[in-house]
């Protein structure tokens, strides 16, 4: 920051002292407060996790799927992707009390209050720690983008508009129908 140069740096030790469920994420050594999400945001994260779980079941595959689950990336970064997926082979390795390592897929649902972090800071951390697939859902503009890692750098792999389906790359065959995600109800 230009003016407030003497900002305190928070670490994972400070973060662990917070009450369970405190509305903070530790992003780049900063405690970032996230307001409670709105009803549309929560409906979308529920549907996303349901679609992933249904897909895994239909393929008879194992995997770990969670909403708003802490991921410990390093000393200065412990935060919750809106939805995350860890492949079967890596569950034992990284799924502990918190997730201690990089998931295979993370999805963030944008709002004006979190967009800076989702579009920039978290994206950089995901890239640095090798998150293979990063999806950003924008319920306001009603579109979605999917980034994949190529030689350690995120490449915009696909975009989808509100009447389209966004297909995952690492979960081959899984599609997210955006008109379904953006409607209020849950019926397919």
């Amino acid at each position, binding site marked *: *920051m*230009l*003016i407030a*140069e003497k900002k305190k740096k928070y670490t994972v030790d400070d973060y662990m002292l917070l009450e369970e469920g405190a509305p903070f994420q530790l992003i780049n050594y900063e405690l970032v407060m996230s*307001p409670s999400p*709105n009803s*549309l945001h929560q409906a979308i994260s529920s549907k996303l996790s349901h679609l992933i779980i249904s897909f895994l079941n239909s393929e008879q595959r194992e995997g770990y799927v969670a909403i708003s689950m802490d991921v410990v990336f390093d000393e200065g970064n412990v935060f919750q992707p809106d939805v995350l997926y860890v492949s079967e082979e890596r569950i034992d390795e990284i799924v502990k009390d918190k997730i201690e390592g990089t998931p295979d897929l993370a999805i963030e649902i*944008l*709002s*004006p*209050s979190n*967009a*800076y*972090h989702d*579009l*920039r*800071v978290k994206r950089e951390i995901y890239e640095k720690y090798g998150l293979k697939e990063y999806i950003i859902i*924008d*319920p*306001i*503009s*009603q579109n979605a983008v999917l980034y994949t890692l190529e030689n350690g750098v995120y490449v915009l792999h696909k975009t989808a508009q509100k009447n389209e389906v966004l297909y995952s790359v690492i979960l081959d065959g899984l599609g997210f129908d955006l008109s379904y995600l*953006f409607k*209020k109800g849950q019926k397919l």
Partner: protein
Amino acid sequence: MALTGNKPKTTIDDYMPAKEGIPFQLINNSAVGLPLPTVSHQVILTRIITILLNFLNSIDDKGLLIAGPVDVKFDDQNILHPDIFYIGENEKSMLLNESVKCVPDFIIEIISTESAYYDMRQKKDIYERHGVKEYIIIDTIGLKAELYNITDGAYILNQEVNETEKLNSTFFRKLSLDMSKIFTAV
């Protein structure tokens, strides 16, 4: 401010009778109010304006450089307040007192956490659609800057620099923004 796609739309008829000085932008048919800019934002804005004015004077340019917030009407769904914009000599005649009704050639947004969603997504898409030739985003949080130019109707990320580097304009050849001078502490 947490707008969702389901909110009733504001139309230009709701917006225009609100006269001057109302601190709202109309973005994709939604009225968006943002908090007043911070001291950092205004310091950076002043520094950039100074560099740009010196540059324009040095090349004897007859265009007009304007610091926001003022209304710039892109279409009936979008009346935006760019932080800094430039209008060429030939379009100057289209300026009116109340609002700007032509598309600027060059726009700079200085982003904060509150404005980032709009500056990086919705407003960027609107600028692209209307053919703003050069769009620069100054990130006061991450201390970075990026520059987009229109190629075949779409923005291409032309440069991305950190706080120690220089951003070289394509639209104004020979204009270089030294980030260390823009981001230096007060």
